[in-house]
């Protein structure tokens, strides 16, 4: 049975380690303010719609991997940097109780979803 390109590539290395060094320089660094782009969301994405247009802070530059929109069809040619972004809950939900101004939530994005805020 023919194995996929992806399975061959990650054998003995692991995933996403097998994509290390393939994404080029990271566009953002820890502490950068970023805004989530509101790109079309058809067929597949892991960019939660409630984050679209919201601003947050890069908390961790995590790893290199194909974006979910590519990897979900086994397209592995263009790995991207991934980032954990921290949002204030208040910035996501306008009715969030003002008694908890420091509450935050973190979630992960591939680089294509981020722009400088």
């Amino acid at each position, binding site marked *: *049975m023919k194995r996929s390109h*992806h399975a061959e590539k990650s054998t003995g290395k692991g995933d996403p380690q097998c994509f290390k060094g393939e994404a080029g320089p990271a566009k953002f660094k820890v502490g950068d303010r970023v805004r989530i782009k509101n790109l079309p969301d058809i067929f*597949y994405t892991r960019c*939660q719609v*409630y984050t679209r*247009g919201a601003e947050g802070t890069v908390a961790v530059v995590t790893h290199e991997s194909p974006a979910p929109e590519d990897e*979900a069809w086994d397209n592995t040619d263009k790995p991207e940097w991934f980032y954990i972004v921290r949002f204030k809950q208040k910035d996501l939900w*306008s009715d969030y109780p003002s008694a908890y101004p420091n509450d935050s939530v973190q979630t992960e994005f591939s680089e294509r979803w981020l722009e400088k805020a």
Partner: protein
Amino acid sequence: MSSSSRENVMRHIDLVGQLQPALHRPQHAPYPDAIDHALFRAYMRTSHDVGGEPDIPIRWEEKQEEQWEVNTYVTCECLAWRGIWNAEERRRRQNVDLGQTQYLGLPYYGRWLLSAARIMVDKQHVTLTELINKIEEVKKRHEKKSPR
């Protein structure tokens, strides 16, 4: 992005929250002018992206995995090991491709199992005819062993 775009996102989340599958309520194929941009986007929503939708709390129950659930998990991992799919393709198929009605209506590992069968057919490792015949054969065998 302007604050009005942010308001659009919140309106979008409200709208998709209303698209819960309605049992016993036929949806007639609409004429194109019945679908505006907002409704189109709501229909295009990937079914796993439920964050922020207004909803009622669901009951939490502590539950051990059943044997068929563990078997299903291992089967899916073997499909990855043999290079039939990767984890992201598996998630796409079991969380999004099967559509909103099945996503919300079937048990978690039921969706894993369906997507494992589906990819074997989609990538032509078995034919749907072979799968149907095998399911029928196992059903018959099981009925004989443990009649209801």
